[in-house]
Structure formats: C-alpha cells, structure tokens
C-alpha cells in the first residue's frame, strides 16, 4: 500500500495539469454540493424557528381529560421517545361576541411553549382576574393598563396582567385563574419531543404506551420540519398512485415529497451526481493518458489489486484535501450569501392580501421570513463525502475493469482493435486531408466519442434545465402575484363586506382617476351567481363536502349558512355551482391574456356579443378538467334579479322571480381571475369558478353600478404615502371601504424574487464553470493524446496555420456535435421539467416552447469553449520540438 501511495503521489506530481483539473473539479463540486446543502439546511431551520414563533414551540396537542393522563408524568420518557416539554391548558369558556375568545387557564409551561411572556402585572390568581395581550385589548377597546375593567360575556374582570402577543390561533386567547370554573372544562395537553430523532415515531410510541387515541391528536405546522407528520408508506403510495384514477406520478411525488422532502434531496442528488460525473470524466482522461504505463507495469508483474490501489490512492490523495477545501469555500460563500439574502432560502409563509387586521407594513414584514443564522449542514457534508468516496472507489473499479478488458498490447497502443475499417482512399477525392484527419480522429473510437459528447453537453444541459426552471419560477411568481392582488397593484381599495349593496360608487372611481400620482385605476364589479352543470358535466364532485355527504368531511358551516354551500346537487349527475362574476375594465381584460388557456380575449367583441370569459377550477395536479365547459360553449347564469339583493337571496333558494337567468357564450378560458373578491363564497384563484366580463356588461346584464375592488398603480417615483392619503380622502365615508398600500410589500416581494433568481442563476453558472473546466480538460486530453500524430503532421510539412486551422475545425466539430446532443437531450428533459412544473408544483403557464435564446447562447459557449480549448492545447504542441512529439 505504501508503494501504491508513493507511486500515486509521483503520478500526481508529474501530471500537474491533470491533478490541478481534478482538484478544481472536486473543489467546485464539493463546494457547490455542501454550500447548497447548508443553504437549504439554514433555510429549513429558519423556517422551523419562524414556525415556532408563529405557531408555538410544540409538536402535538390532544384532549387530556381522560384516564390515561394520570400516568403521563411517569411516562414522559420511555423506550424510543422523550417528552422535552409539556403544557396543559383548560378551556373555561368560549365566547362568540364581540369576537371568538377562549378563556383559558394555562400553566407556566404553556406560556413559555407559545413564546409568550408576562409583560406587566401578574398571572390571574383570583377568580375575577384576567390577563391578555395588547392586540386583544385594542380589539376590545380596553386601555392596556393593569387594573382596567374587562367585561366579557356580561361578566366583569380586572386586568391583572398583560402578556405578549399570541401565536397564530383561530380564536383570541385570554387567561384566567384556576379559581374560575364554569363546570364545562376541556383540558388539552401540548407536547414537545426531543428533535434529535423522529418526532412522529416518538408520539406514536407515547400514544401506544398510554393508550392515547391517535385519531384525536392534533399536530403543529412546524412538524413538517422535524419529521412530525405521518410518513407516506412508499409502496402504498406508489400503488395508490398507479391504481387511483388520475393520480399518477404527481400524486406519488407530492406525497413522498411531503414525507421525505424529495425536491431538496433531488437537487442535492443532482448536484452530487453531476460532481461525480465530472470527477469520473476528469480522472478517466488522466488515466487513459497513462494507460500504456500501467500496462507496462502490469507486463512486469503488477497485479490488478495494485493497479486499483494506485488509482484509488491517486483519487484519495486529491479527494481529501479538495473536498475539504471545497467544503470550506462552498460554505464560506454560502454563509456570505445567506447573510446577504438568506430570506430566499426560507420557505415563505402564504402571501395574504385581504386580511383586515394587519397594516401593509406588518404584512410586508410577515410575508418575508426571518432568515436567522447560517447553519452548516453536517449531514450533507458527511453524506456528500461518503457519496463521493464510494463513487470514487466505484470509478476506480470501473477503470481497472476497463483495463482488464483490454490486452496489454491494446493498452500500450491505446487501441481496442475492435473497429471496422473504412477502405476509402480520400486523397483521390479531396485536395486536403486535414478535414478527413479531424473526422477520423474524432470517430476513431466511437464509444469514447459519444462519451465525450455526452460529457461536453451535460453541463450545458443542466444549465439550460436550471435556467428553464428559474425562468418559469420567475414567471409563475409574477403571474401568481399579479393574480393575487390584481395587476400587482400598488394600492388596492376593496369593500370588506359580504353585502352586494356595499360598493365603491362609480363617481369615486372617476375621482380617483384624476389623482395625479396614479397611473392606473382599474375598478372591478362583482356579482354572485349560480350555473347548472348537468349530465355529469361537473366532474370533481368529491371535493365538495356539501354534495359528498361523507362522515368526517363536513362542509364549511358559514358557506352553508350564507349561500347554501358552493355546490348543490339537483339530480343524479346534475349540480348547481356558485360562481363569482367579475366585471373588469379593458386593461385588466387585456392582462388576462397572460392567463389564457383557450380562445381569445377581445373586450370590444365581448361587449358587442355579450360573451364571457370562463375561469374553471384548477385541480391538485394543475389540470382544469373539473367541469366540462369549453371555449364556445353556452352557459346559463342565474343571478339575483337586482344588484341590491338581500343576503337571503344569495342562498339561491328564494322564489324564482327574485332571480334572472341569462345565457352567455364562452369566448375564452383563463387559468386565474385578477382582483378576486373573497368575501362571498371565497376565491383563492383556483377553487371557484369565475365568470369574467366587461364592467359595461355587468351593468347591462345585472344592473351592477358600483365597484367591489379598485386596483391602483402608482406612477413611477410617486410617493406611495401621499397617494394613499389622497385615496383615503376620496374614499372616506364609503362604508366598509378599506384602502391597502402594498408598495412596501411589492418592493419586498420583488427583492425577494430577484434575489431568488440571482441564486438560481448563480448555481447554474457554477455548474457551467465546472463543466467548462471539464470541457477544457477533455479537449486538452484529445490534443495531447495525439501529440505523436501531430508531430508527424508537422514533420511532413503542415504549417502552424494549417495545424491551427485543423484544430479549429476539430473544436468546431466537437462544439457543434455537443450542441446537437445537448438540444436532443434537452427536449425530453424540458418536457419532464414542464410536467413537474405544471402537475406537481402547479406553476401557472410555464413556457412550453424551447426558448431559442439560451439554446443559442449555450451553443455558442460550447462551440467557443471547445474551439478555444483545442487551440490553447494545440499551441502547447506547437511550442514543442517536432522531434519530441514524434518520439512521444
């Protein structure tokens, strides 16, 4: 072994360029893998910490007023689980007016678990003492001073303490003493397990130990980061994906992704495999160069094991310091990047627009997550090292095996002796033979040639794939953002109401248009309607609890009460579905073209022919086949017979004379509405059918005069504060009218997106650089491997220019062929990526066409690099004496 290492070291010292190329290849690959791994790990940890702040630092909660609870204290630590923290709350009373408020008695551990502390005063001790947070006090209009009187449900309390704000919860929470008892208590246990091992397994073990009903255990949202969700069974998921109608790969992927974070692992695996491929390619070039020397040593008695030992030692000697260097560099760069723009690696919270209680500033802050500290991913570091090492040994074994397959003579002459020869005499047909020589050199060993082309194109392929995903991510983010708040408006005015009568008057919208700071004012009219879907034309009935009638799948009680549900069954295969009807101005309608699925959007024609745009339901796999309505179909729309319909009429159960029915031809299908109204039957952009028409049609068809929302864009450079003040002034006095300034949020989101894009492209560029090193090295090998032949050509009288011309031809050929391979491979790769973007990640309208610009750029880069690499290597040939080359 000592001799192997000594010999390996000697080789590395002698072939310095090869050693350096391999060293750089490992450094970059390791740097990229461990750096990205640490970024993702840091993002995940930050998301977990943000989650703890937002939802509390616990994993599971359950009712605990059962007999098993008496044994809980003794069972906190058991075989395979350990409860790190536990808290108990007792709900003393639930109040519905003026808000949903829970009156709780909590132990100290609960407050600590929820990240809440006593800011002032003391925790309630006497029967009529109460503690709450400032936000709740504000909502109840009570001064935030200890000793204040708080009246809840007709009962007076003394404010004994003020606690910090509560994490996200369905109801406001106030704390009372243990003395207060209405006799209808419900106790809940909150549990936090140690996070060093799988949290879900720990919970299951505790549940088994105590006999807790597993179906009644609630989970915290942070569980996704600590393995707290029930893992999807691999075979069961795959089987269900194959057997279930319409499930398929997206179903399998999304379930497994939830359990095993497949997206992140796929990215890391792709980076790792790419790194190994590069290392293999660089090393095999180096070994092939020295094949004759190994054969010489084998001829004098070196065993296969020793050959393996030498090669493995060579790789090992390079790998260890290179991996360590790459790890340091990659993590150094990652730490810097994370400090600068760590937010882009943290899974952001959902981007809410219409949530009345917050200000735009707090929303902007809330929508961009806190990045926290940078964490080195030890798992990826070791995992990557083991992965690389194992594959490195595999590479060595493959190379030794390759040598075994060749005879010693073949290795010495670097020929396999397997090729069939073309007997054409080229000099009879061609005046020059350099072109023929180039071709012959290339195709001499077809396997090696194909391998070379594949390795040349793989970097570009990954770069193209990454930029395709990056481009579409950008497009998807922009379109989603735009669809969420209507044209990405800086300011939005909306009626925070579910009354059709509460509207922004038309003249107000006209006055807004006169505000000099505004560049666009797009008012939106709204009406609630119902469409019949008969004879099985409504396909996705299983998602509507009100028509499925399945135990445990209950319909939304509010929607049932106010609108008699979204879907109503009227016959065996007949249904009626509530729909949102929007009226847009021409600018918004034109903008809808970006979301066009079918047909044509022409506002003028819509007005003339009274046609509408139909926005279908979008399924969990990005499909729009929930209802069988196509472009050109006629839909029957039932609406209240006047725009001031009472709430009761919106249940669509009143007498027929209260409604009108009209037929509309569908002129186009779109994937998203703009400027949604969420206060009636709701609309997240995908889960409701929307009918869109012009504002004029809304007036003529339904008599709607006022507007429900107004999307406003500011002129460039206009002061958002001043503009918002002017808007507020104009809209003051309009009941339930809310003005929201999104400028900061948009700015923050745009910054977030641009940073994310920079990261995407940054990774793609590093991949490209790695593959460029590989191309340079491969091309250099190609040239140096033929030093002898080039020496002959020079001795025979080829001029330096002629020689360079020949090399340029070869470089061009390699460049062009690798481009062809790249394009041919890219086509299916893009199709697969497209499938995943649409079906799994639900991107809106990703590009289906292969964009020619990146393809052309990558082709040009490939050709240039191949040519330059060949020329640079060729220059070193020209510098040497002809006779040296001939004797090489």
């Amino acid at each position, binding site marked *: 072994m000592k001799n192997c290492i000594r010999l390996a070291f000697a080789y590395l010292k002698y072939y310095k360029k090869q050693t350096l190329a391999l060293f750089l290849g490992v450094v970059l690959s390791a740097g990229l893998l461990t750096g990205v791994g640490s970024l993702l790990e840091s993002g995940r940890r930050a998301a977990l910490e943000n989650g703890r702040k937002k939802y509390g630092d616990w994993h599971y909660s359950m009712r605990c007023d059962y007999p098993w609870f008496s044994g809980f204290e003794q069972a906190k630590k058991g075989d395979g689980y350990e409860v790190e923290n536990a808290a108990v709350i007792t709900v003393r009373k639930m109040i519905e007016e003026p808000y949903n408020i829970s009156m709780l008695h909590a132990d100290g551990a609960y407050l600590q678990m929820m990240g809440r502390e006593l800011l002032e005063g003391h925790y309630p001790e006497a029967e009529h003492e109460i503690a709450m947070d400032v936000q709740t006090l504000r909502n109840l209009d009570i001064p935030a001073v200890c000793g204040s009187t708080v009246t809840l449900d007709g009962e007076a309390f003394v404010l004994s303490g003020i606690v910090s704000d509560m994490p996200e919860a369905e109801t406001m929470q106030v704390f009372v003493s243990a003395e207060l008892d209405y006799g209808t208590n419900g106790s809940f246990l909150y549990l936090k397990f140690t996070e060093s091992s799988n949290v879900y397994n720990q919970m299951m073990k505790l549940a088994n130990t105590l006999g807790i009903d597993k179906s009644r255990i609630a989970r915290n949202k942070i569980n996704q980061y600590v393995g707290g969700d029930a893992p999807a069974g691999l075979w069961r998921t795959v089987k269900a994906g194959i057997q279930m109608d319409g499930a398929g790969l997206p179903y399998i992927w999304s379930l497994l992704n939830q359990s095993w974070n497949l997206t992140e692992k796929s990215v890391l695996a792709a980076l790792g495999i790419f790194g190994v491929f590069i290392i293999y390619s660089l090393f095999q070039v180096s070994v092939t160069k020295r094949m004759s020397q190994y054969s010489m040593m084998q001829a004098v008695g070196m065993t296969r094991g020793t050959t393996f030992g030498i090669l493995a030692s060579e790789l090992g000697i390079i790998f260890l310091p290179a991996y360590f260097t790459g790890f340091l560099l990659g993590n150094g760069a990652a730490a810097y990047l994370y400090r600068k723009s760590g937010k882009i690696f943290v899974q952001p919270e959902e981007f809410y627009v219409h949530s009345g209680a917050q200000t735009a500033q707090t929303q902007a802050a809330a929508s961009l997550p806190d990045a926290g500290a940078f964490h080195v991913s030890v798992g990826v570091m070791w995992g990557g090292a083991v992965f690389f090492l194992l594959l490195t040994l595999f590479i060595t074994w493959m190379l030794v095996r390759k040598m075994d397959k060749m005879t010693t003579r073949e290795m010495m002459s670097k020929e396999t002796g397997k090729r069939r020869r073309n007997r054409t005499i080229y*000099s009879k047909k061609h*005046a020059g033979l350099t072109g023929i020589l180039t071709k012959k050199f290339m195709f001499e060993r077809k396997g090696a040639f194909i391998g070379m082309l594949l390795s040349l194109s793989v970097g570009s392929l990954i770069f193209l794939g990454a930029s395709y995903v990056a481009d579409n991510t950008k497009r998807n983010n922009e379109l989603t953002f735009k669809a969420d708040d209507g044209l990405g408006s800086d300011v939005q005015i909306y009626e925070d109401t579910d009354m059709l009568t509460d509207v922004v008057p038309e003249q107000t919208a006209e006055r807004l248009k006169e505000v000099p700071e505004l560049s666009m004012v797009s008012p939106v009219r709204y009406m609630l309607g119902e469409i019949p879907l008969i004879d099985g034309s409504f396909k996705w009935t299983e998602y509507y609890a009100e028509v499925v009638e399945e135990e445990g799948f209950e319909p939304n009680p509010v929607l049932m009460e106010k609108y008699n549900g979204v879907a109503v069954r009227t016959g065996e295969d007949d249904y009626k579905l509530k729909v949102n009807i929007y009226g847009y101005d021409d600018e918004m309608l034109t903008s809808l073209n970006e979301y066009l699925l079918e047909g044509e959007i022409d506002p003028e024609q819509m007005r003339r022919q009274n046609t509408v745009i139909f926005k279908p339901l979008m399924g969990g796999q990005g499909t729009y086949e929930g209802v069988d309505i196509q472009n050109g179909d006629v839909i029957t729309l039932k609406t209240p017979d006047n725009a001031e319909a009472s709430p009761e009429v919106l249940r669509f159960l009143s007498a027929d004379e209260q409604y009108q029915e009209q037929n509309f031809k569908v002129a186009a299908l779109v994937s998203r509405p703009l400027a949604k109204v969420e206060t009636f039957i709701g609309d997240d952009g995908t889960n409701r059918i929307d009918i869109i028409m012009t504002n004029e049609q809304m007036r003529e068809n339904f008599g709607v005069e006022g507007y429900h929302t107004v999307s406003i864009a500011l002129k460039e450079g206009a002061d958002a504060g001043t503009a918002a003040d002017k808007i507020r002034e104009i809209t003051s006095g309009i009941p339930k009218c809310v003005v929201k300034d999104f400028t900061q949020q948009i700015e923050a989101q745009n910054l977030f997106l641009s940073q994310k894009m920079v990261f995407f492209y940054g990774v793609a560029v590093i991949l490209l650089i790695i593959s460029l090193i590989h191309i340079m090295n491969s091309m250099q090998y190609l040239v140096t491997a033929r030093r002898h032949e080039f020496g*002959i050509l020079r*001795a025979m009288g080829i001029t*330096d220019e002629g020689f360079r011309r020949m090399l340029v031809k070869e470089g061009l050929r390699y460049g062009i062929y690798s481009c062809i391979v790249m394009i041919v491979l890219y086509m299916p790769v893009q199709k697969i990526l497209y499938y995943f973007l649409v079906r799994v990640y639900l991107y809106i309208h990703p590009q289906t066409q292969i964009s020619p610009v990146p393809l052309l750029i990558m082709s040009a880069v490939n050709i240039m690099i191949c040519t330059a690499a060949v020329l640079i290597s060729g220059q070193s040939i020209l510098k040497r004496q002809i006779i040296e080359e001939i004797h090489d």
Partner: protein
Amino acid sequence: MKILEIDHVVKIYGSGENQVRALADVSLSVEQGEFAAIVGASGSGKSTLLNLIGGLDIPTEGSVIIRNHDIAKLKRKELTIFRRRNIGFVFQNYSLMPVLNVYDNVALPVTFDKGKHIDHAYIKDLLKELGLWEKRKSYPNELSGGQQQRVALARALANKPAIILADEPTGNLDSRTAIEVIGLLKNSSKKYNQTILMVTHNEAIAQTCDRIIRIEDGQLFDGEREFYAKGGAV
C-alpha cells in the same frame, strides 16, 4: 553539385550543470545524389545532426545550408514549406498516421501544398515499385514492420524531395527486411538523383553506402579511410 553544407554547427541542450554538448563544431558538405550513412554510438549526436539538417531542430551556433538556403534563418512558416518541398523523412518508428490507409499516408505531405495537384500516377508507381499497391487500402497496424517502413519511404518520396533523411530506418526490422529497405533507398537515390542521409547503428549496412560519416561525442570524423567503403547493390 553541393546540396547540403553544414558549417561549424554547435548544438547544446540544457543549461548550467545540465548542459549537454550534442554537436561540437561540425562541418560537412554533401553532394547531390550521394547516399551517406551517419554512424556512431548511442548518444553520439547522429540523430541531432539529422534533425538539424531536417530543420526539426535549430543549431545553437553555425549554419545548415540546403540548396543555398540557410535553414536557421528561414522563418517558421518558410522553414515548414521548405522542409515539405525539399526534405523527406523516414523514421525508425515509421511514424505513420494510424487513422489513414497506406495510400492516404503516402499522399499526405502533398496535400499540405495548397493548389498542388496530387500526382496519383506517381504515387501509384511508387507504391507498385515498393510492393505496396495491393496494400494501398490497408491501415498501418495491418502491415508488417517492413511494409510500414516501405510506406514511410513512399511518403518521404511522394513530394520528390531533394534530400531524404532516414533516422535508423532499419532499426526495427529483421536483417532480411532491413536489406530490402536499404535496397529500395538506394534505388530511389539513383532513380531520382536524391541525396540520402541515413543514420544507422549497423556497420554492415553503412558499408553499403557511398560514404560513411562517423560521429563520436558530437564530433565528426568524415571520410576516414577505415570507415569508408564504396556503395553498391546489396
């Protein structure tokens, strides 16, 4: 007529302590049509001399004049073209292009001259004369050593050069094939009135040449009686 004149040529490799004086003040002239053998022990400088004559290497001092051209003073491109048109090489390891068949290997040097028409009739004659016509579509690794060296010879003759430089052309061949190759060289020299300078270790082969040039430790002992012998058909 003098075709080659070497005047006080010195060739030094390396520098400082590693300096090696490969040729020391060598002067020599060769007549057109002469078939000269350069003999000497390994490392004596015979191949260096041949490489300097062929313009494959540059003298440290002195001049190498071929057909009145001081090749050391020619620019790189001029030297390449001059070499292509005036000098043919035959190497010990044959140095054929493995990816080209016999015919294309022979035609290769001619194709470097842009616009120059390949004289296929001449190549055919050459191949026939060297007994390679039947093997014209074969690749070098399908030929025996003697056949490969004959291809190398045909290639050296393809451009009808004034001088053929042969560096141990029989070094890798058995004695019978070696004699055959030397015969071909001699015939060619006579037929085309070509000057042939051949490096060899083999005293017997050297004795068959018109002239023997002996090198020892980089110094030339030209025309000394004991090494001189009149050439003739073998």
